[in-house]
């Protein structure tokens, strides 16, 4: 897989040389072939993320500019990353630079897609919506659209080099990806670009590697699934089986488990509370077929439209949450059918979420002790080498969360101390996981907030699962100093739940 080079780094700031070279002469396509300005809009999004170290503050706002595509219903399709943590989104017409605020109708970070609507209904009048492409094969040409500063559409034509399942940026969910080989130029506003084929939308570009000149597209089947879910009364998103599997290429393994049937994948991990677990699938099972599609030893089936691709496409994209899939399973020498009711992911049950967007992280500040709930964005504040640099015990909780009992609840920890009279001697404490407060078990920040209302003998007793094991605060003094602490550290609030 190519490195996750996002357009964020490459294309923001028009002064940055593209890949370190001077622009090559333009290869203009024939004007008549243009799919064009009547179907695309500039989308300017100002975004602002919370500071996960100090969740009562936001970081500097930044803007992302991309191209959205008009689809039916007067709506505009963009990548979710373009509008992630948005504060203000605006649409701009390519040629006239006429602007209009946009409302986000739906954003789905798993599939990296979002639907916008102009705040003024008439804004897109006269424009032409694009329909979704179908039937593309590896080797077919495809055209990526960009805009010149004057609003003219610049086309770069490349070809589809692979159609396969790939990890999506935010949650690593495996969905279909079209890979394109196309020599894109550095142009302003290229965070999300549409790709077209014969006047139809082939996908949205979600990442581009300038060195290998390859672009990854969110393809029509993923977009279609997203739009279908959006049309439902309750948005179900993308389902997942919740299984980890590996190839059965190893002949010694096949002989050992007596697997005489061709193909099949070996189940290595079952997500707690996931669809496969509910259905009774187990580690060591071999999945031979999904909904009648036989699976080869690498996990691929023959798709009518796209050829040999991973069966994850069937479970994650073709099927919707709520659907029932039938697996053909090999277990202990026997083969049987196993119905699996597909579920979406209940994000509230995740121990450490891989992303937290559009919401303020929770926190509780007690007498200057700052308590947080573990999430990966917190760990990622340590930079790209966070698995090495972030507090190791928290990294392990994140990494091995599927091995932890669901009864564990959230991981609440003391992230830092804002020194005050009450925290004398505790200044250097940081990143300690809380087990109990005033004798009550802590499984969420809400638990902690509640427990802190019941001091014992005038003390707030906080217990950790590592040194110093337990500390005390004078409950009366903490209560008295609340407003002082708040004003001295300019804290808008002492808790956010």
């Amino acid at each position, binding site marked *: 897989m190519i490195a996750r080079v996002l357009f964020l780094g490459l294309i923001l700031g028009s002064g940055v040389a593209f890949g370190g070279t001077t622009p090559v002469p333009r290869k203009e396509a024939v004007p008549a072939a243009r799919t064009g300005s009547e179907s695309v809009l500039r989308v300017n999004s100002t975004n602002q993320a919370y500071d996960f170290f100090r969740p009562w503050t936001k970081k500097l706002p930044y803007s992302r500019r991309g191209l959205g595509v008009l689809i039916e219903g007067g709506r505009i399709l963009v990548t979710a990353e373009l509008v992630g943590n948005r504060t203000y989104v605006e649409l701009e017409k390519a040629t006239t630079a006429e602007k209009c605020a946009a409302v986000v109708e739906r954003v789905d970070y798993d599939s990296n897609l979002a639907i916008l609507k102009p705040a003024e209904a008439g804004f897109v009048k006269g424009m032409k919506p694009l329909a979704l492409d179908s039937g593309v094969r590896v080797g077919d040409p495809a055209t990526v659209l960009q805009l010149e500063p004057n609003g003219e559409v610049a086309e770069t034509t490349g070809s589809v080099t692979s159609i396969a399942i790939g990890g999506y940026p935010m949650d690593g969910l495996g969905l279909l990806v079209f890979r394109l080989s196309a020599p894109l130029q550095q142009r302003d506003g290229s965070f999300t670009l549409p790709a077209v084929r014969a006047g139809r939308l082939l996908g949205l570009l979600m990442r581009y590697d300038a060195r290998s000149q390859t672009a990854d597209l969110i393809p029509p089947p993923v977009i279609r699934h997203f739009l279908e879910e959006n049309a439902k009364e309750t948005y179900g998103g993308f389902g997942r089986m919740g299984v*980890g599997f590996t190839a059965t290429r*190893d002949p010694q393994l096949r002989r050992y488990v007596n697997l005489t049937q061709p193909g099949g994948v070996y189940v*290595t991990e079952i997500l707690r509370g996931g669809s496969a677990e509910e259905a009774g699938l187990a580690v060591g099972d071999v999945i031979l077929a999904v909904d009648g599609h036989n699976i080869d030893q690498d996990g691929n089936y023959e798709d009518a439209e796209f050829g040999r691709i991973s069966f994850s496409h069937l479970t994650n994209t073709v099927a919707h949450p709520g659907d029932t899939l039938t697996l053909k399973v090999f277990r202990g020498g026997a083969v049987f059918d196993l119905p699996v009711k597909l579920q979406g992911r209940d994000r509230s049950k995740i121990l450490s979420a891989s992303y937290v967007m559009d919401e303020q992280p929770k926190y509780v500040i007690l007498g200057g002790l700052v308590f947080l709930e573990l999430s990966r964005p917190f760990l990622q504040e340590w930079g790209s080498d966070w698995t090495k640099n972030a507090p*190791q015990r928290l990294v392990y909780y994140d990494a*091995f969360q599927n091995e932890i009992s669901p009864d564990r609840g959230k991981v609440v920890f003391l992230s830092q101390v804002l020194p005050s009279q009450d925290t*004398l001697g505790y200044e250097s404490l940081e990143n300690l996981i809380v087990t109990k407060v005033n004798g009550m078990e802590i499984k969420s920040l809400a638990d902690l907030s509640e427990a802190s209302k019941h001091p014992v003998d005038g*003390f707030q007793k906080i217990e950790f699962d590592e*040194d110093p094991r337990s*500390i*005390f605060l004078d409950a009366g003094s903490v209560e008295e100093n609340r407003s002082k602490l708040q004003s001295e550290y300019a804290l808008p609030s002492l808790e956010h739940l």
Partner: protein
Amino acid sequence: MRLSKIEVVKGVRLPRLTGMFRLLVPASFFFVIAVLHASPVGRSLVRIEATSQEPNYRTPWNPGEVSGGVGAGFVISGNRIMTNAHVVSNVRFLTVSKEGNPKPFPARVLHIGHDCDLALLTVDEPGFFSGMSALDFGGIPEIESTVSVYGYPIGGSKLSVTRGIVSRIDFQPYSHSGMDSHLTIQIDAAINPGNSGGPVLQDGRVVGVAFQGYSGDVAQNVGYMIPTPVVRRFLKDVEDGHYDRYVDLAVSYDSLFNPAARKALGLKDDGEGVIVGSVYGGGSSEGIVKPGDVLLKIDGLPISSDGSIEMDGKSVQLAEVVERKFKGDRVELDTLRDGQPVKLIVPLNQPWPFTLHSNAYNEKPRFVVFGGLVFQPVDQNFMSAFEPADLRLRYTFDFFVDDRIYVERPEIVVLSGILADPINAHAGDFRYGIVEEINGSKIRKLDDVAAAFAKPVDYHVIRIVGNGRPIVLERRAVEEARGRILSRYGVTMEQNLEK
């Protein structure tokens, strides 16, 4: 206690460690460097040349690379030469020469203490010690008093002496073992590779043994010596002909400054007492001291709330009491448990799980090669050689003591490498995996691996922690491949289970 983020670089053996001392800052030679042929100290000093062989944990069947180093030593009573352990670790051949006389005399190691970085040598050739004079030991020098460091540091081949003052007396990590901390004296005289093992003198008596420093780009004019309480302890420990290592309370404690905490624990506002955080398994205090106990006195000495005590008129960490004791000795703790005073007696021993995190010397790497798969127990030497990024392995290693992993798994055995062959073509994903089970037997130590593979089975089945798919090797295929793999990869032995 947490170590500081600055890494202490061994200030030691000449050729090997020059790379660590990236540059010799001239400014660190503020003090006079003189060659002293005729000084009385010259009759006690020796130059040590050591040839050592360090095993390579990546090819554990090979005997290892041979290298040479230079250090200093000095004669003490009983025809013995004192130096640093790191000067003579992994040594295969050792010579010493007297100051001013280039003739080398073969020497041998009598005792070596890796946890305190001290060693004793002797020379068997009659007459070597005649004309040499043994140095005597002094006490702890005063802060700001002047000391002289003798040795053979880089910059020339003859004896050099540098002079400095005593800057600080504190507990510091000893980088040779990487996990021990003892009393250390910081001086501002330069201590460079080759100074190691040399005496630090004041008024004609040894007040320390030079042993480590910072490389020039971290800090300047910071040198460390092993003070005489540590040296005397080492000498006393070996009196019975055997070095037993340090003993430890094996508890962690935290300061007690917070007024609310003091009140909650029923303590007076007198600035005394520390609170016990962890009582480490397998250590002296297990089952005697409890987390949450407040330590008030150690052997009758009052403990300040920062963990310091007053000993011989100097403020030192409370651990210093234990530091001067030996295996089987007892320590008396006055504690407050649940508000009640309790007297505890702790018989002292060495907590074994900790040694996993200590650099090991004079040991042969242990391993088992089977079907081209290499199995090794994980220890600090292994981690330094491989630097694995694997999160599960790092967790298991880092939290081996804290999370009592040693109870279930006295050794962490991993699949450390794959000598590629058609029979193991599908095992690549399992590198650095911790071995859970082989042929139905739980793997708790490396010996279990050898025993499990000896079972008569048709399929050898290896299960890795956190991976649902087993590695399967057919017995017949393994037997066929055996000679082929060993000869192709130059594997001279299939296993070594002895240290």
